[in-house]
Every structure is written in structure tokens, then in C-alpha cells.
């Protein structure tokens, strides 16, 4: 349940605005890939093209290819709905459905994919997904309470449980810890470490220490000036990026000279 992603010459546009310029990269299965870079450099935008969520904004389009195990996500006959069923996403702020209980939240994606699920099968799936998100022991006695009643960190883990319940190939995380306190952040980082044994994980983060802690490979994005398109400066083993990057811009950014 994890796939390799090859991005080839990807250019991203919002109407006339060229947001990201010619990105090519390979994302390895069963590993964590981190995107770092200053605000506005297009790292979240690139992340959102991996499950075609950027199309939610009217006028957005891309040129180039995103291949998931050789299958182009932007082929003419590819349905974005199918793409998103294989590529799960966790957002910057926890967003459990407020009108649903914890249990219903976990099952939300499964209910979309296959309408009928027996009571015992869904109980099992709820437990398995919440276990997978390290949340089961904290919520097992209140599965019918609203998901919005949990703490921020628990809500974010609930969102991860919801994403893994549909058994995706890839999990995208867009700054998943930026709204959380350090303890909750630690819980999510531990979870990311466990998730990579089964899934391809891609995470966008503003926190360089976090990238260093959780990721195997890191991509550094930058933009030359405001209004210019963002681009991928370099991508390499995380250890190499943080100790001996090949580009001076990366060196400047990670050593804190800008950004």
C-alpha cells in the first residue's frame, strides 16, 4: 500500500499567475519526504498537485506529469475523485467534520467509497484506524461524542485516522503540526515515523527541525523574488541537506541567514 511518485517538469498556474516552475522529483515509497522553504515558495501548492486538490481553486491548472507507479494523475481519463481516494491528505488545521461523532468521522471516507459496511466490519475498521493513529486508547470510551470536542492534537490524529481508514497509497500532510503545541507535535511526529512503514508520506513543514527529525529525504523550495514562480532548488537525503547541501541558497536557508 505505498506507491512511488515521479514528478516530471511540473509547472503550476493560477490563471495567468505562474506559481511554480518546472519541478521534477522522485518520491520514494515507504519513506517520509519533507518539503521546506520560505512562505510563498510553492511547497504547499506542489503538495496539493499530488492529489489534485489545487484544482479546488478556480482557474488552477498544471502542465507536466505526475506519475504514480507509472500512471499519470493528469492523464485525460483520470478522475480527480479517484486520485484523492488513493492519496489521502491531512491539513494545516485539524478539520474533523463537526456534525459527526468520532466514529462517523473515521468512517466518513469509507462511506463515500463503499456504501454498505457491516456493523462488525466498521467497528473493526474504526478500532484499527484509531490504533493506527495512536488515538484509540484516548477515545475508545467516547466514540459517539463529537470529534470537535477533542483537543487540537487529538483532532489532528483523528484526521489522520480518517485518512488511513480508506487505505490510501500516499498520505500528504500540509504543515500538520503548525496549529499544535509541542507535546501534540511530538505525538504526530512519532505517528509519522510509524506510518512510513506502510505508506508513502509527504509532509510540508515550516519547522526545519521537524523536517530533520521525521524525514528521509528533503526538498528545498525557494523563489527568486516576490511575484516570481517558486522552484525546487534541490532535493536529497535529509542528512545531506542539513549537513552539506549542494546549493548555496539551501545552505543560507538552513543556517538561518534568511527565511
Amino acid at each position, binding site marked *: 500500500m505505498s506507491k512511488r511518485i515521479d514528478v516530471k517538469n511540473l509547472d503550476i498556474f493560477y490563471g495567468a499567475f505562474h506559481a511554480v516552475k518546472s519541478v521534477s522529483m522522485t518520491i520514494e515509497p515507504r519513506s517520509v519526504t519533507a518539503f521546506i522553504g520560505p512562505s510563498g515558495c510553492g511547497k504547499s501548492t506542489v503538495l496539493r498537485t499530488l492529489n489534485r486538490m489545487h484544482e479546488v481553486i478556480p482557474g488552477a491548472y498544471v502542465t507536466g506529469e505526475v506519475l504514480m507507479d507509472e500512471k499519470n494523475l493528469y492523464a485525460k481519463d483520470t478522475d480527480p475523485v479517484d486520485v484523492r481516494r488513493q492519496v489521502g491528505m491531512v*491539513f494545516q488545521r485539524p*478539520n474533523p467534520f463537526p456534525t459527526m461523532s468520532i466514529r462517523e468521522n473515521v468512517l*466518513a*471516507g469509507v462511506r463515500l467509497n463503499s456504501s454498505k459496511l457491516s456493523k462488525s466490519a466498521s467497528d473493526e475498521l474504526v478500532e484499527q484506524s484509531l490504533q493506527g493513529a495512536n488515538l484509540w486508547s484516548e477515545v475508545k470510551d467516547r466514540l459517539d461524542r463529537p470529534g470537535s470536542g477533542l483537543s487540537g492534537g487529538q483532532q489532528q490524529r483523528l*484526521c489522520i485516522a480518517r*485518512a488511513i481508514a480508506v487505505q490510501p497509497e500516499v498520505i500528504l500532510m500540509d504543515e500538520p503540526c503548525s496549529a499544535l503545541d509541542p507535546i501534540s507535535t511530538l505525538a504526530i511526529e512519532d505517528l509519522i515515523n510509524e506510518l512510513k512503514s506502510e505508506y508513502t508520506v509527504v509532509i510540508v513543514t515550516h519547522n526545519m527541525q521537524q523536517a530533520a527529525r521525521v524525514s528521509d529525504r528533503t526538498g528545498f523550495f525557494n523563489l527568486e523574488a516576490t511575484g516570481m514562480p517558486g522552484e525546487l532548488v534541490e532535493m536529497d537525503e535529509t542528512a545531506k541537506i542539513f549537513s552539506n547541501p549542494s546549493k548555496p541558497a539551501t545552505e543560507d536557508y538552513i543556517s538561518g541567514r534568511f527565511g
Partner: protein
Amino acid sequence: MTATSAPEAQARPKRRPGDIVFGGLSTASAFSILLILAGVAIFLISEAVPVFGADPAEITGGEGFLSYVWPLVFGTLVASLVAMAVATPVAVGIALFVSHYAPTRVGTAVGFVIDLLAAVPSVVFGMWGFQVFAPKLVPLFIWLQEHLGFLPFFESASRTGRTLFTASLVLAVMILPIITAVSREVFLQTPTLHEEAALALGATKWEMIRTAVLPFGKPGVIGGTMLGLGRALGETMAVAIILSPGVFTWNLIDSGNTTVPAEIALNFPEAAGLRLSELIAAGLVLFGITLAVNLGARAIVNRRAEFSGAN
């Protein structure tokens, strides 16, 4: 610990004249609404009292107030509920189209037209219903009688179209704008975060609307529907013009039945003495029904408040 008297000094914040004036004005406004409501209730009750002490034979119909008023209440409720049942799905559909399907420019234009519909006076709707709409409905009534005539609601068909059902449909058109406007506002407020959560799980547009938009907007839609129901219950002019009133009947597609407001409006000018008290007592009953509808709506909205997304 030198200034032990400080807490007392701090306990009285400085009173600024602006705050006092504005605070007083808003408090007075809040209390005036209670006074007005109490005034109306006192008027209705005191004027209606003679009816309850009167000899049943003296009441219109000759069998007491209850048997006089219940057909009116029945007509009012049926007309309003049919109007609500017809208008709500259409209004929610329009609101979803405007908020989630239409391109911004088209959505704004449609929203504007709907608001214009709200600006049409009820007497105009009444004349339109009488002159244009009612005759157009006659073939439908005949069809209903032929195919569903075994139901008591469609026993015989009116040849003028001036029926309770026609009045209900016109009421539906009249309450459409308010339900649409309220629904559109709540649908537009659905947090993008929740919509994206649904889409990222692989929801189609309709599934996204079902998982994120409709549950979030439900209390608002119920609220809008109740506002519409309130308007339909009290609507006088359109019903008075369209409906050819008569005694109680289950049949909705022929003349007969009437509603509380129409009964009051048509008889009030010539009423005096006990007859006047009867009409005012009927008004009191309508007042009670509207109050109950609003309290009921509140209860529905509050029932699952912790799941509402407001927290």
C-alpha cells in the same frame, strides 16, 4: 503589600457617558420588544374573553367556539405545511446552486432575482394567483381527481382553481425567497476546511455537499423554513383573494376551507360585539400556533448543538 485598598478602587471602572447612554438605549430596546409582545397578548386575551363565557348557541355555527375555530386552524395548518413542503426542497436547491454550483456572476444574478421575488407585495401575488395561476391549475386538479380521486384530498376538482391547494402553492412561492436567502447564507459560510476535508477523502461534489455543506447548514435551513412557515401561517391577503372559502372539507382541490387570517380579514370590517370577539379569539389561537412553531424550531436547532460546528 502597601496598597491594600487598591482592589476597591479597581472594582469601580470609570463610567463613561457614551457607554451609559448606549447601554441604556440597547437595554430599553430589548425591553420594549417584551412590552409590545405583552401588550398584544393582553389585547387578544381581554378582547377574546367574552367568547369563552358566551352561550355556545350564540357563536357562529351554533356549536361553540372550538367547533367554530378548528376548521380555520386546519385550513391554516394545511395551507402552510403544504407551502413549506413544496418550498423547502426548491429553496435548498436554489441556495446550493447559487452557493456551490453556479459561477459567481450567475449565482449573484440568481440571488438578486430571488430577493426581488421577496419584494413583490402579497396582494400582487394574490391577484396573480386569482387571475393567472388558478385557471392554469384546473387541468392538474382534474387529472388528480381522475387518477387519485380515491383519496379524500382529491375527491372533486374545482373548475375555477380557487382552492386551498392553489393558495398553498402561491404561499410556497411567497416563502421561497426567505428560505432561499437564509439557506444561501449558511451554505456560503461552510468552512473551506471542511469542504476540502471531504474532497480530499475522494468525495464527488454532491458527496462533499452531503458530508460538509448540508450538515453544517441544517440549523440555518430549519431556521429559514420556520421563518417561512411563520409568514405562511400569517399570510392574509393572497389567501383571501385566491381562496373561494367554505366549510371544512378534506378535499384540497375544490372550493371550501379557509384560514384564520383570511377569515379575520374578510369578516372584521362588519363584525361587532360577540362576532368581533370571535375573530379576535381566532387571532389569539393563531398567535399561540406561531409561538409554538417558533419554540419548536428552536428546540430542533438546539437539540444537537454540540454537533453544530459552532464550537
